[in-house]
């Protein structure tokens, strides 16, 4: 176990390093020159050179890359003379656009993304699994057809359409919710809840649809197993029969997907955060891409990669826990 974990940790570090390296290479070779963007409309070549110099963009690839890595582990200095600033480890640099410390930006925005992700995940797991389970149990009934039709419809509607439509109906027409705004929890739980409700709903819909259909398919398969007959022969309550015997085998594949989906969401829900004006990592990513703010892009990339890789490790660990037959072969 310890050896396995050590191996995985090494893998995580390797992947993160590769992601950094490749992202850096893309910027270095393919991506636009941020100096030009900063330079603005009345721009001279000298000014571009000057900006490149200030941002360190004129250095060779390896110097830039090692500087970036060194910053993460040991911190680094920016500028010279009176303008010198020390950026303590873990240093992700400063935004080209706003000069903010990228680490601070991430720390500030992560809670918003996490709130969005966790709330939505709770919602979609609940909705998806309950709907899928009910549909499986009532296979072929009108409930099953309706739920699965809705699930298909839900997955055919893009996020942004749903977001705006929901806003139109709930806020503009019915006026049951205020216009969404990121309200911190300290402003009162009710307000906070209201403000995140729509993002949760929107994000959860797409996932819930997938999870409902997957749950249904897997539960139907499981229900046909002989051990379900045994469970029924025990006279357990239907809830317990379902939850314990049918759901666990059916949910193991869903655990895999959930790990991936949730980890990806922690790295920011780009569209939803943008549409609802939530100041999370996703919006930061969208903004930084639009403005070619490379330090910020690097940071969100690294953050998302970190979550994804860790998510995958967790999924693998959970999987061997969930399915005892797998455990025996897991090194």
């Amino acid at each position, binding site marked *: 176990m310890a050896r396995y974990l050590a191996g995985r940790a090494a893998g995580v570090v390797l992947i993160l390093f590769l992601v950094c390296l490749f992202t850096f290479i893309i910027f270095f070779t393919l*991506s*636009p*020159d941020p100096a*030009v*963007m*900063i*330079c*603005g*409309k*009345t*721009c*001279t*070549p000298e*000014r*571009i050179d*000057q*900006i490149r*110099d*200030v941002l360190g963009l004129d250095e060779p690839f390896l110097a830039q890359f090692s500087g970036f890595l060194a910053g993460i582990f040991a911190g680094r200095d920016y*500028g010279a*003379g*009176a*303008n010198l*600033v020390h950026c303590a480890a873990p240093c992700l640099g*400063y935004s080209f*656009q*706003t*000069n*903010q410390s990228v680490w601070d*930006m991430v720390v*500030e*925005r992560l809670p918003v993304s996490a709130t969005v992700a966790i709330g939505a995940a709770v919602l979609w797991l609940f909705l998806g699994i309950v709907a899928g389970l009910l549909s499986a149990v009532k296979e072929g009934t009108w409930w099953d057809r309706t739920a699965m039709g809705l699930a298909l419809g839900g997955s055919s509607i893009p996020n942004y359409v749903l977001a*705006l439509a929901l*806003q*139109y109906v709930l*806020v*503009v027409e019915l*006026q049951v919710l*205020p*216009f*969404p*705004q*990121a309200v911190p929890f300290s402003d009162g739980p009710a307000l906070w809840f209201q403000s995140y409700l729509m993002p949760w709903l929107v994000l959860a819909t797409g996932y819930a649809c997938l999870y409902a259909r997957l749950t249904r398919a897997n539960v139907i398969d499981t229900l046909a197993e002989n051990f379900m007959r045994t469970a029924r022969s025990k006279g357990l309550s239907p809830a317990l029969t379902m939850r314990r015997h049918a759901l666990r085998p059916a949910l193991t594949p869903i655990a895999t997907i959930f790990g991936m989906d949730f980890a990806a969401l922690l790295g920011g829900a780009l569209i939803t955060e*943008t*549409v*609802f*004006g*939530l*100041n999370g990592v996703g*919006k*930061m990513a969208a*903004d930084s*891409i*639009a*403005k*070619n703010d490379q330090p910020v892009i690097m940071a969100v990339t690294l953050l998302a990669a970190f979550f994804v890789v860790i998510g995958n490790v967790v999924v693998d660990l959970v999987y061997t826990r969930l399915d005892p037959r797998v455990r025996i072969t897991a090194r």
Partner: protein
Amino acid sequence: APNSGTGTGSPAAAPATGGTVHVLAKADFSHLDPVRGFDGGVNNFYRLIYRGLTMFGAGPGAEGTKIVPDLATDTGTPSDGGKTWTFTLKDNLFFEDGTPITSEAVKFGFSRTFDPEAGIGSPYGKLLLDAPKDYQGPYLDGDLDTIETPDDKTVVFHLKKPFADFPSALALANFTPFPKGTGAGAAFDTKPIASGPYKVASHQRGSSLKLVRNPQWKPETDSVRAAKPDAFEWTFGLDPATIDERMLAGQGTDADAIGPSIQAATVARVQQPQIKQRTLSGLNGCTTYMSLNTTKKPLDDVRVRQAINHAINKDTVVAGMGGSALAAKGTSIQPPTIAGRVDYDPYPYNVEQARKLLAEAGLADGFSLTLDTRPDPKMAAVAVAIQDALKQVKIDLKINNIDTSTFYEVIGTPAQQHDAAVTGWCPDWASGATFLPPLFDGRNITAKGNANLAQIDDKAINERIDEIAAMTDVNEANAAYGELDKEVMKQAPIVPLAYEKLILVVGSNIAGAYQSSSFSGGIDLISVGLAKPTK
């Protein structure tokens, strides 16, 4: 809700003192440090917290582009044929922290534009002032000798060459005075030192910004800023469609709110009388145009460029930009808000004429062109409209989408630029001086960051530009630019497509709102206020 539904009057009514004006915005300001930020939106905002020697006037139409004194007693005295400018400061001027605003502060503020890291705003400081060639700003190189401060109230600028429009340049916020020695690094981006009627109370990057009154600002020293509300509050990061919905609904504090221009899809919804009466509409002062790369075949032939000018149906272009409510047909290079601009239409829509010109050029069978554009819906619509129009004259237009973040870099690099590009230009102030020379002076063509997209290098035009720049009478110069516009269009290096309009819906409690021609048609923040402030 106290102020929703029934409007308390038109947006133009005089505002009362007090209350909080809310502003709904898509994105946060790039920088609070005025030496760094430089665009219509942020310049409009800077006027609330910063003061300069001169400023743009307050009022609709031409009022808003007039240069008026701010900290200075007048708009400056030129001498030495316009090479030296002297300004005198008013009395009783203080910064937010109580330090008096002196000539030293003016000089310090101006010299900040030379800092290699901070001075990324407008280029005029370096372009105009006769500073040592390698001067790197006050933080690295100390004082700047070419700005004299004979006493606390007098400041004298020495320019490289005569520049009649210098007071206009000084109206830009980049030259905001600051107490000597402050603002190193990015200090002002987080904690600016206000000199205007408001100061920053709190700023959460990307989500909100709150301004409150600056008690050190003395109204009697300021004849331009009305500064009626007690506070301003920005909400950033909102989706455009959401902003439109909120402005239409006008619930709660949204009644006290102003926002950016509505989207095309919302135009039909602002036609109801209750909403229409709180709607402002006007030009944004920019020109949307298609540049034609005169170095590429067959665009090097003026007849081909003229034919393209004739062939493009600007009505469909306007439709693509959101219809007549959101754009007007473009005819001349300079938009109608520019002083001295002549209204004329050198190339009316005429397919026959276009065919004839192409036939003359030996291209009756058409050819193909590549158009650089951004994947922005509006730009895409314009590109498709052009494509559709050029089909009639057998020109096969290929659309090359360039990611928004790289677009300007690509088209500004002659080596990468294709045959044509759809883009726009806004002047820094309302005269031809910041419109025609950057776009059509052949000597400005650079290998990177090029603005002369047509790459036209015409001796006559270049010379004329120098002549006009040397004129000391601003009005005379403006009139000359109007004529130069015609001269340039004879060469047809670009196709003026449209002048974009803004439609602004304001909250029902908003008063004193008008569009300022100096800030891309945005609502002039120093005059806006509330009709009935609630406490």
